[in-house]
């Protein structure tokens, strides 16, 4: 059985020092077992300026079992699957400790972004690129951050512009973009379907 009392305490604690850590955790629905965490890309890395969303699902044994975390935002990183967003991090597996919290786990994920471990990769392709062509890796990571992790802030105006040119009302376009998290294609789909 999940200790919901603790989860609630963690959420309160997290929202209290959100300004300092930049880390946000909010429940997906009214069920506290499924949450969404948001971490800012660390400064001085190709992920700088991006905002990354992480799907969190708490197992029944939480906090005695580690929470399941997966990137919802696409990210180019040796230890994060570019396909599924799966994270390779020891504290989310065999090094979990019940004294860790969602906030500290997310902080560790953030630290992983700034310190990749190519020797223990989750995504072999990315890891190869990181080792062999580091410049290309940096460029790709930066590009992915630009296109997937910044969608909601930068470039919104251009997307709105384009969609408005297609003949949709601006208010609808904005709300649709917001609803899908800034993805232009998804917004277009949503606009077309109704």
């Amino acid at each position, binding site marked *: 059985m999940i200790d919901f009392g603790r989860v609630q305490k963690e959420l309160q604690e997290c929202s209290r020092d959100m300004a300092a850590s930049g880390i946000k955790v909010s429940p997906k629905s009214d069920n506290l077992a499924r949450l969404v965490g948001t971490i800012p890309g660390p400064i001085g890395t190709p992920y700088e300026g991006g905002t990354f969303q992480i799907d969190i699902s708490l197992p029944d044994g939480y906090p005695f079992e580690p929470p399941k975390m997966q990137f919802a935002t696409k990210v180019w990183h040796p230890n994060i699957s570019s396909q599924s967003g799966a994270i390779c991090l020891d504290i989310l597996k*065999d090094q*979990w400790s019940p004294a860790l919290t969602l906030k500290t786990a997310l902080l560790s994920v953030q630290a992983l972004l700034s310190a990749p471990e190519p020797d223990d990769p989750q995504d072999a392709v990315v890891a190869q690129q990181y080792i062999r062509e580091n410049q290309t890796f940096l460029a790709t990571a930066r590009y992915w951050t630009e296109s997937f992790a910044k969608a909601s802030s930068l470039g919104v105006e251009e997307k709105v512009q384009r969609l408005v040119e297609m003949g949709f009302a601006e208010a609808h376009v904005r709300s649709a973009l917001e609803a899908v998290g800034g993805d232009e294609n998804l917004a277009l789909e949503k606009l077309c379907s109704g």
Partner: protein
Amino acid sequence: MIGIFMIFDFSCSCRVLCKFFAHGACLKGEHCEFSHDWKDPPHNICTYYQKGLCAYGSRCRYEHVKASRSHSSASSSSTNARQSLVSDIVPPGNSTRSVLGGLTPVPGSPMELSASSRPFIPPTKPAWNQEYGHHDSLDDWDIGEASSIRPSDRPICSFAAAGNCPRGEKCPHLHGDLCPTCGKHCLHPFRPEERVEHLKSCEKKQKHLEALKHSQEIECSVCLERVLSKPTAAERKFGLLSECDHPFCISCIRNWRSSSPTSGMDVNSALRACPICRKLSYFVIPSVIWYSSKEEKQDIVDSYKAKLKSIDCKHFDFGNGNCPFGSSCFYKHAYRDGRLEEVVLRHLGSEDGETVIAKNIRLSEFLGNMRIR
């Protein structure tokens, strides 16, 4: 002297520290008629001692002070406001006089103890909420004869021992010396053993209360709750780790150490380790209080081990069973006749030159490998 059946006024009891609360578990919570405020003094006078016999003797956890005078507080509702303290010392010639008769406050009368002249101070240690059906000799001291008895046989004033004697200097009874720990005049000037006993127990109690007070704020790092504020009494205990000083509640740390290593967590490196510092600890010690020094922790550990050592090991089963923990077992390994198990370890030199301790060797183990043609 006439037996007075004490009706204890419960309005006083709220000023007395609830003993269940002091131990960390009062089931009545806010509805408890006793005080849940640490500032209030505990009620700690042994009632059996007052009657003359306490089977626990020096091991009794209540105070063995002579506060044996029965006190009367007029407790009928009409006289509630004018409660009076009356000396129960009745001179022999007057012994048939009704004590209650003396209670009627007469305005302007020289009754120094009537409520109109002195505010009623509720005794902080109500040791006399007993119904004394009989009176032992202790209750019938005569001041007139006081000089003929040895000073160590004279009881001390129970009002002073309980914290406040309304008669102050004028009190005809022996006032005890001030106990530096509990701040009451409860040390008998002529009974050295009693003094030492009281001082010792008082200090110990004070220490325990202090420690309990400090422990109130401590949070478990797993459930993030204050350990001593958990809903059930069983949960309001710390689980001390032998090798480090991180606080957890007993249920959380036991849960973690016994959780099934499903996700590839290793029992010895992950689960036996402290969740915070990852230092390995081989056992957990339950404790109601959190310690503030190494010595205090050692005391808790020692008393825990001593307690376990007095319990018969269920694996050993008086020699019928086999305890997997062997000589490291915390429980008692004794046979039915009280004889303790003698552990004789067999030291063997192994091939690489190191000395190993042989486990039980059975003949069947050798026979099992034998091939019979």
